[in-house]
């Protein structure tokens, strides 16, 4: 951004204003695109998200089709565009209108005709704020998941949970400890990295969120923090894709003369309490509840029955009949008061 200047969008129905602003911004080294009303501006902003996103919007208020207030309202409601700094450039009459812009999230207000020096200062301040915000988001993204980052951006960070309906998945590598003993630590790290890339990909592509990784095990949640229409179906499809990925990975390993990985996956569905636990300084997004324990028990049980994917009755009940399952009957799982129905999912 800094080397090529920022990418800015000017939305103004007045051609003289558009040309003059564009000139001024280009003189400052920025790349400028022009929109002649609010609706076109929003279309351009949304389209650009996929490739060359805009860094800042200069917005006029009085415009046909969709005015500046309408644009600000829509930006505020759009998760992908909410962080875009907006500088309102207008000669609307009345302080109330300026206050309304700021309340709707505009970064700044510049009266027209726009003073070039002031414009430069405001734009640099807006871009700097955006840079810091992006940096902060990037940090959150790296240490949490995109979904948790979004959830935080949306509802803010607060310790404590809320009760949601979700499918919880546990997965780990069978015989990992003995595998670790037979190979170098470097090899183990490489193995784990490849394994995690494959598993994350399968889970994320079905709307799941990995919220814990411990050694060779992981915990994923489907349906929190963002609600899913069909958490059970998503979790099971993710498990099936994980199983395919492991099979492909094993084909590679076999070619290299290495032993295959064996993975166990347990899925349970029901009420969980999802939220941040920890302290104000260090917290993690997690889910707690009986459903979580059940999923962990099912995953452990895969070892005993030598099946890769086990699910509980609630997950099974919500599945489409096209998914092939095998009823293993009521099973007494460790830590459970009574026997529970367990189903194996076949590839």
């Amino acid at each position, binding site marked *: 951004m800094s080397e090529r200047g920022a990418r800015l969008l000017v939305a103004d129905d007045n051609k*003289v204003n558009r040309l003059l602003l564009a*000139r001024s911004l280009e003189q400052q080294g920025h790349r400028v695109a022009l929109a002649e009303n609010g609706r076109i501006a929003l279309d351009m902003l949304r389209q650009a998200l996929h490739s060359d996103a805009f860094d800042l919007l200069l917005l006029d208020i009085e415009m046909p089709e969709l005015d500046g207030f309408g644009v600000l309202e829509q930006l505020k409601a759009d998760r992908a565009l909410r962080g875009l700094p907006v500088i309102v450039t207008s000669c609307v009459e009345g302080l109330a209108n300026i206050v309304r812009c700021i309340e709707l999230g505009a970064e700044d207000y510049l009266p*027209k005709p726009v003073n070039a020096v002031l414009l430069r200062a405001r734009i640099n301040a807006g871009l700097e704020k955006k840079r810091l915000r992006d940096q902060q988001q990037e940090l959150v993204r790296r240490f949490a998941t995109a979904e948790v980052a979004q959830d935080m951006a949306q509802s803010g960070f607060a310790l404590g949970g809320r009760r949601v309906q979700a499918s919880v998945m546990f997965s780990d590598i069978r015989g990992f400890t003995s595998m670790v003993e037979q190979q170098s630590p470097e090899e183990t790290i490489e193995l784990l990295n490849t394994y995690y890339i494959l598993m994350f990909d399968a889970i994320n592509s079905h709307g799941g969120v990995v919220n814990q990784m411990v050694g060779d095990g992981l915990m994923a949640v489907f349906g929190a923090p963002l609600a899913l229409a069909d958490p059970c179906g998503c979790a099971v499809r993710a498990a099936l894709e994980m199983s395919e990925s492991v099979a492909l990975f094993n084909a590679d390993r076999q070619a290299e003369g290495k032993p295959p990985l064996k993975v166990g996956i347990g899925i349970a569905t029901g009420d969980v309490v999802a939220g941040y636990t920890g302290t104000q300084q260090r917290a993690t997004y997690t889910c707690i509840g009986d459903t979580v324990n059940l999923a962990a028990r099912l995953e452990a049980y895969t070892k005993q029955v030598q099946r890769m994917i086990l699910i509980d009755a609630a997950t099974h009940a919500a599945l489409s009949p096209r998914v092939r399952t095998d009823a293993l009957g009521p099973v007494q799982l460790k830590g459970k008061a009574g026997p529970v129905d367990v189903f194996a999912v076949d590839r």
Partner: protein
Amino acid sequence: MNASIIDAATYTELQESAGADFVAELVDTFLEETPALLDELRSARRLGDADGFRRAAHSIKSNSQTFGALALGALARDIELQGLHPDMAVDLHAIAALQAAYADAAAALKELRDV
């Protein structure tokens, strides 16, 4: 040239910040756009379209302020703030005055552009 038609300080500042050649082009754009805006103003008045009326006046005001066309800008601002008058004759009178002020501003800007 009457100083209230084009404010010399505003026009010079515009030339200094955007470049004289660019301002000459911008004057051309102004001369192309404003007659259409005056037409919009008239037709919005005829149709009783309060939004269109206010917006056209607003644009003329905004452009006038860019070039320092003080008299034109002041008249446009009055129309923008007053909006549609119940008596159409009042608005038509104001639009005629605006048209005359535009003719003055256009002549003065052409002169400045061709210096």
